[in-house]
């Protein structure tokens, strides 16, 4: 696309900010290497159309080009929330996982991509390469210990709870102020929180939500989304500093993500 074309699209978007022309414009800017401008246009578009998977896919590709792995991962994860069969997101996530050395996760995303596009020979070739790389990592005689988020979650029972989007308990438990088991009740309440947080974050232009911190009495809480279809709640007494609680929640979230992927 020529510079004149980009200028024309820019003018069109300025005249009508609600136009979908932001998609080809941001893509053209990305291809020309104008990544800052591309990102600005794509983010504004995604904020305007928070339910459009294609807008977040564009954001993810631009972030990836900028070498921003985590935000790109978040954006493609959002794409999969909106459209679980989005081929580009599966490919993008496979690439990011491969780049970070996580070959087994990369393999999972690539397998799904091949299922979605069985005639794509390039994808099949990539799948074989990643499969070889994943196998090459294994050392004969060494059995990798199974990831166990429950060890992190249940070291102190009643302080961390992992639930699915339907509000059902996946792991852990949550103890009420009086010491009773409140896991099921909290799990049910968390299903609504996740949906509400996602809506608020999108509509307010915050991007896909990553964390929620809550201060209450007698405990503080941290919420995370280890995967697109799970929510983790961690509580600690107020005496535990907020930054430390956030780190504990991050660690438990990472462990929970690995555990869930292993289960699948």
């Amino acid at each position, binding site marked *: 696309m020529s510079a004149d074309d980009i200028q024309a699209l820019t003018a069109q978007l300025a005249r009508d900010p609600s136009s979908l022309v932001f998609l080809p414009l941001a893509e053209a800017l990305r291809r020309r290497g104008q990544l800052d401008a591309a990102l600005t246009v794509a983010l504004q578009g995604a904020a305007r159309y928070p339910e459009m998977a294609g807008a977040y896919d564009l954001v993810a590709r631009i972030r990836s080009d900028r070498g921003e792995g985590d935000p790109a991962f978040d954006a493609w994860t959002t794409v999969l929330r909106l459209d679980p069969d989005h081929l580009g997101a599966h490919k993008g996530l496979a690439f990011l996982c491969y780049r970070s050395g996580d070959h087994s996760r990369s393999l999972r995303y690539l397998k799904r991509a091949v299922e979605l596009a069985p005639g794509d020979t390039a994808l099949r070739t990539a799948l074989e390469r990643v499969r070889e790389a994943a196998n090459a990592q294994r050392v004969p005689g060494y059995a990798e210990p199974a990831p166990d988020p429950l060890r992190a979650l249940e070291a102190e029972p009643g302080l961390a709870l992992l639930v699915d989007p339907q509000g059902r308990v996946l792991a852990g438990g949550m103890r009420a102020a009086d010491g009773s088991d409140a896991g099921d*009740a*909290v799990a049910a309440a968390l299903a609504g929180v996740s949906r509400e947080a996602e809506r608020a974050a999108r509509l307010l232009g915050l*991007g896909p939500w990553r964390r929620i911190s809550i201060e209450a009495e007698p405990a503080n809480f941290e919420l995370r989304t280890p995967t697109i279809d799970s929510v983790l709640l961690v509580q600690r007494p107020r005496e535990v500093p907020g930054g430390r609680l956030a780190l504990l929640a991050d660690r438990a979230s990472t462990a929970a993500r690995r555990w869930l992927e292993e289960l699948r």
Partner: protein
Amino acid sequence: MLRELLTGLTRIAGVRGALIVSGKDGIVVAETVMEGVDGRAVAALTGSLAARMRGVTGALGHTDPGLLHLQGPDGGLFAAAGRAGLLVVALTTADVNAGELRLALLRAAERAA
């Protein structure tokens, strides 16, 4: 007085808007927001989110949340509970000093009534 409270919050770098919101129904009581920020949307969404959070803490027999902070890669939403069911709310960029804003919000929430 409410306006003064909000102006103090918006002086903190990274705060795009500050509002007093009725926590029960998510209606704006007072606001100071930058151009492009829809105060009514912020209020409504914050009210809904806070209500959901009350469900979580309530299920545990804890108090209503005194402060909540929703964080995304492109910004954050903070809400501190004041008197009479009011929420003091701030919409921020991603690089705001969360510690400074937290203290300011808690102070403002004590005075908001």
